[in-house]
């Protein structure tokens, strides 16, 4: 076991941290990016491409860098600390993960080079209104046309980065009842294809999402990412990797928020002394540190287990990680706002943005209670 980064990983971390410190050093920069046409800084996306960030998890034979989940974790943590809003999770981890795990060589060869160069962004159009946290709950239908293609019909809600993405990876039901685990296919759809309507909006944490309506959307046989025999399994693998990445992002955000809070405690004066001299606040800051360290440990665990081939063991680990991250993030986030007093409540100050991002991470792919329940159902961790 080795918790140290190797030289290349350290280099990666240094260069991402440096780029993001420049690009996100000031909260006003982020506010500026939110107003750009895509809702993020397109030029920065190109810089990610130049740094090789967009190719991390893709195999070299497809044009990627063939790196592992540790590298993804490094990037995600840096994103969390910087509160970066570019659609890395949507393009590279989620939709990209679906493509990778589908094993669809033709599509990978076609798409990965464009993704890696920063010319193609993707979104995973999966979530539906009624589904809450059940990945298999899909009402959108895919009707086979008898020639290997499909016609999609349905509505997707809160598709992360869905309004700026060039292409959507859509989950749809080929057969079975609404929440059946079998019969789910994955389809690649051009975001501007006939029958696709998108309603984009900002999210609570400064990113963007879209509600997507699919009405008689045609999918050619070549654009079938994965058939109904294995769609859900592919989706689950990608989502598990996304949970690992989100855990790392949350740790980055928690780390940034904790540091901000401790600095504030050391500088803010009330009653003629720094408020950090009050022991009750010191203890709170220490409990936050504990929450952060627990979260970091579980983010590592998630990264380690995201590659576990045994689906049940993998799911248990992801559930455990999500529970810890959710618990730590809520405690640390709420405490950070409290320790700041009024300033923590404002839009102009970074603490609130960290807190909002952390809260939204809990809402993604199952909240704390959902995962606790799932883990308990599976008999706990061991």
């Amino acid at each position, binding site marked *: 076991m080795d918790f140290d980064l190797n030289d290349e990983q350290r280099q990666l971390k240094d260069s991402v941290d440096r780029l993001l410190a420049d690009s996100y050093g000031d909260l006003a920069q982020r506010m500026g990016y939110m107003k750009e046409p895509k809702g993020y800084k397109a030029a920065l996306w190109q810089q990610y491409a130049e740094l090789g960030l967009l190719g991390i998890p893709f195999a070299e034979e497809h044009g990627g860098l063939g790196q592992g989940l540790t590298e993804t974790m490094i990037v995600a943590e840096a994103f969390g600390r910087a509160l970066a809003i570019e659609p890395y999770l949507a393009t590279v981890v989620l939709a990209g993960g679906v493509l990778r795990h589908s094993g669809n060589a033709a599509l990978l060869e076609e798409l990965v080079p464009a993704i890696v160069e920063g010319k193609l962004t993707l979104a995973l159009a999966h979530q539906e209104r009624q589904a809450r946290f059940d990945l298999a709950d899909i009402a959108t239908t895919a009707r086979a046309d008898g020639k290997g293609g499909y016609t999609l019909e349905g509505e997707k809600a809160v598709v992360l980065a869905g309004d700026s993405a060039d292409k959507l990876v859509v989950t749809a039901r080929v057969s079975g009842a609404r929440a059946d685990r079998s019969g789910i296919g994955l389809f690649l759809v051009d975001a501007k294809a006939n029958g696709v309507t998108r309603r984009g909006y900002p999210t609570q944490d400064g990113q963007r999402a879209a509600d997507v309506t699919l009405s008689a959307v045609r999918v050619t046989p070549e654009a079938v990412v994965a058939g109904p025999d294995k769609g859900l399994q592919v989706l689950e693998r990608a989502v598990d990797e996304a949970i690992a990445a989100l855990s790392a992002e949350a740790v980055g955000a928690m780390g940034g928020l904790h540091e901000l809070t401790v600095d504030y405690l050391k500088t803010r004066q009330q009653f003629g002394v720094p408020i950090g001299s*009050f022991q009750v606040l010191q203890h709170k800051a220490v409990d936050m540190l504990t929450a952060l360290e627990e979260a970091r440990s579980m983010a590592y665990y998630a990264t380690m287990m995201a590659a576990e081939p045994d689906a049940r063991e993998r799911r248990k680990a992801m559930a455990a990680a999500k529970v810890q991250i959710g618990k730590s993030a809520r405690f640390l986030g709420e405490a950070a706002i409290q320790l700041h007093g009024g300033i923590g409540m404002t839009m102009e100050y970074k603490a609130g943005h960290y807190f909002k991002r952390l809260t939204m991470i809990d809402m993604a792919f199952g909240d704390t209670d959902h995962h606790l329940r799932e883990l308990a159902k599976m008999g706990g961790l061991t």
Partner: protein
Amino acid sequence: MDLRFSPEENAFRQELRSFFRSAVPETIRAKVSENRHLSKEEMVTSHKILHAKGYAVPHWPKAWGGADWTPVQHYIYTEELQYNGVPQPLPFNVSMCGPVVIAFGTPEQKKRFLPRMAALDDWWCQGFSEPGAGSDLASLKTTAVRQGDHYIVNGQKTWTTLAQHADWIFCLCRTDPEAKKQLGISFLLIDMKTPGITVRPIQTMDGGREVNEVFFDDVKVPVENLVGQEHRGWDCAKFLLGNERTGIARVGYSKQRVQRIKELASRVMAGDRPLIEDERFREKVAAVEVELKALEMTQMRVLAEDRHRKDRLPNPKSSILKIRGSEIQQATTHLLLEIAGPLAVPYQADSDDAQFGSNEPPEDLEWAAPAAPAYFNYRKTTIYGGSNEIQRNILAKAVLGF
């Protein structure tokens, strides 16, 4: 000891309930229970409806429009008002400045200010906090220098709630720079239209615009607007903050929110059954209800105890109400967020944020839109009105004798 309500008290409750439900517009009450922002006009409308019936300032002395109720009646009033989603009569007027003027003001000040305050003909705001003076309020720096018949006020207040609507502001200003902290402060009433006052909005993290900075640049305030003795404004402030603490428990609003949690959770499906049937969720709701009942009973006990107190100083135990009341409010907003789950993610920009494009949520999802903003916004309840840490300090000193 008899903890049951008498038949008269129950009848009183019925009377209030039917008045609140029939007289205060449904649209306004729905907004309150759904955690949506009220416009100034809606707040004034509701306040005036209550005032016409004598329900805006029932706790004031009869001579100034009060109702001469028993503590139990007051308790029932507050609970019914909140439980039915009626906006609280403007606290700055009726619970903060009004009682100070009644307790410390001159007969002329009472005649001049109280009727308009009670009717919300004038909107008041609270100018206590400053950038450098939050928890340590007595370190405030805004100065008021006596020049003939006027004070000249200079400085800055911050976090001033709804100052954008205000006609008047009640301020703590330093009148004696030489005196020890608390001893050189005076309580001044300042007309917001006076030249030299600038209001700058502060946006909160949820996107709301309820707080402001207020700047004073050589603002002339007539000496007759001083309440109480010069340099003794701290007495007014202490008295006011104690009143603020009890009002802040908001038991009725929390009860209403628990109802709403139960309704929404019976509609929202988690897998193949409504979320409310999920044991873990259901237990969390029940646990909050227990906490809320304990708070409610404690509040009644504090009120009962207050009847035997001879001084007019606040009961330090009201800090317990502030601490638990705020924590319970926060817990209920988090439960609403949990119900909304992934549907809480879209941000509904208000009209001031036009750069992001306005986006109305689909009609059937309107209930989910305020869930996250309310959760974010309610973090304020453990910060304002004396932070919960400060309340604990008060209890440690005043009740435990540390």
